[in-house]
């Protein structure tokens, strides 16, 4: 069975809402109790307000764990991209509003193999789990690279944050306005090709599903370990409803089985996931 910390449900006050673009914002929430327990890759189930439409919470990666000068956790943040009703509401919230936050939930990233490097591959809002991972990697003194792709250069955020942590940054945009023109998997493939295989470079990926499938395949082809953080429609976040399942192949069993991404994930071994 999966061992985890007891999640907390905090009725968190919005401390700030920084709109990064017309679609993206960072919502800082007064839920330090959750932040203090969060490991990189874990998530929250979030609901703004008490209404019944929409009824359910939404899963969000913990983006930042914010500390004061003494290192005490003061808040957490989420990186939001507006797409539906809940994300639309989260985009417009003002400081003082309340957001119910249940967490931390899920299985975190595993640290890279000894002496190896860590490569993070982010697509769009898939940047979210990598701020805390980059901090953890810096604390472990693991050399880290961020491959970061977006539609346009204006949707590449928090580059200074990663630079400050000493992360090497490789950018790609679909419109070519910044970095490599095209998908982030293009520079990733080039870099993977230059590595000695089998390698000790762990590839971590989060973003749209086709990107994750491509990253997992590339990592496997170049014999590097790979972890992906999957986003699924989720009902409860605790393993109660069986709605967020992912087909996964376990060692010694040719038949894939549906496992719940809220407790067995959201972080999975990229080689175990059966991609569509």
């Amino acid at each position, binding site marked *: *069975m999966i061992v*985890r*910390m*007891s*999640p907390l*449900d905090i009725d968190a006050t919005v401390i700030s809402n920084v709109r990064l673009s017309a679609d993206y914002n960072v919502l800082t929430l007064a839920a330090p109790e959750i932040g203090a327990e969060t490991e990189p890759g874990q998530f929250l189930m979030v*609901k703004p307000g008490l209404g*019944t*439409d*929409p*009824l*359910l*919470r939404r899963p969000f990666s913990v983006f930042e764990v914010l500390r004061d000068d003494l290192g005490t956790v003061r808040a957490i943040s989420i990186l939001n991209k507006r797409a539906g009703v809940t994300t639309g509401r989260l985009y417009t919230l003002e400081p003082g509003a309340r957001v*119910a936050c*249940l967490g931390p939930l899920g299985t975190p990233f595993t640290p890279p193999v000894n002496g190896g490097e860590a490569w993070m591959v982010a697509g769009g809002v898939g940047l979210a789990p990598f701020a805390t991972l980059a901090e953890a990697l810096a604390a472990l003194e693991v050399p880290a690279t961020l491959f970061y792709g977006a539609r346009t250069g204006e949707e590449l955020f928090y580059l200074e944050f990663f630079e400050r942590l000493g992360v090497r940054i490789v950018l790609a945009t679909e419109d070519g306005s910044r970095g490599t023109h095209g998908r982030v998997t293009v520079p990733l493939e080039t870099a993977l090709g230059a590595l000695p295989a089998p390698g000790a470079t762990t590839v971590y990926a989060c973003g749209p599903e086709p990107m994750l499938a491509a990253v997992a395949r590339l990592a496997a082809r170049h014999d590097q370990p790979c972890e992906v953080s999957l986003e*699924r*429609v989720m*009902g*409860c976040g*605790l*393993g*109660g*409803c*069986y*709605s*967020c*399942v992912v087909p996964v192949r376990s060692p010694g069993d040719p038949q894939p*089985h*549906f496992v719940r991404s809220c*407790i067995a994930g959201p972080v999975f071994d990229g080689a175990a996931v059966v991609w569509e």
Partner: protein
Amino acid sequence: MDLSVRIGSLEMPNPLIAASGCFGYGLEYEEVVNLASLGGVAVKGLFLNAREGHPPPRIVETPSGMLNAIGLQGIGVHRFIDERLPRLREAGARVIVNICGTTIDEYVELAKILSQEEGVGALELNISCPNIKEGGIQFGCSLTGTHAVVSAVRKATTLPVIPKLTPNVTAPATFARAAEDAGADAISLVNTFLALAIDVESRRPRLSNVLGGLSGPAIRPIAVRMVWECRQEVKIPIIGMGGIMDARDALEFMIAGANAVQIGTANFVDPFVWGKILDGLTSYMQRHSIARLQDLVGTMDTSAPAAAHA
């Protein structure tokens, strides 16, 4: 104050039961609720054998509710007994096992297997899952089928037998009567309402299974009505459910005629809902000087409608 309720040989300290399919096998929630503090835990529907369930997407939200078509993914009864039941017993949970079959023999076999195990408090017969073709719904939608499966299971076990009724029939109360006549110790209702949600841009169904079952506050008034109708038809205890979000909703079901209630979808929204509802029930009892919560069951006063502000 006495919140206890009895269903056959199953004694529960309070009437709050986790609804099947909404609480995993119970152990998933050990860290957020003390399982022994719940009246009971209805575990996820079990077949004899393990099942993979439907491909995702398995749920979609609709106004004040959700559709699900999980397809009864599950580990099968044997793994349940080996891997989950001992820990549920240790945790002090009063376990209600929700059983599903494609034939009467399968229900009987499940009942026999589970009757030999220590720690099973009752059997809930799922004859009402709307999401799988081969499941017990064919029994749940026919009066003779309901009678046949309940009496067969009745003969096979001394555990309390609780058929779970579907709302997808014109008159659930006639099914309640058939269940009582066949020797059921109690009935539970409602399972979900068969429903459909379509994405108009792509003209595709929102669930892989096309159809799903609607749960949540959207169904509550219909479920309350059905419980009330059943209360007039049968003497056996009724376990009511459908969209209960708070203590008021639970009380509404009890006043309509439910002896106990199950909570499903609300647990997804707030896994800490149990303590809140229990507190709400006790404060209601204090305010209304009710010593035994069971005295509230079926006490709707139809002499006049409530004042408009109520």
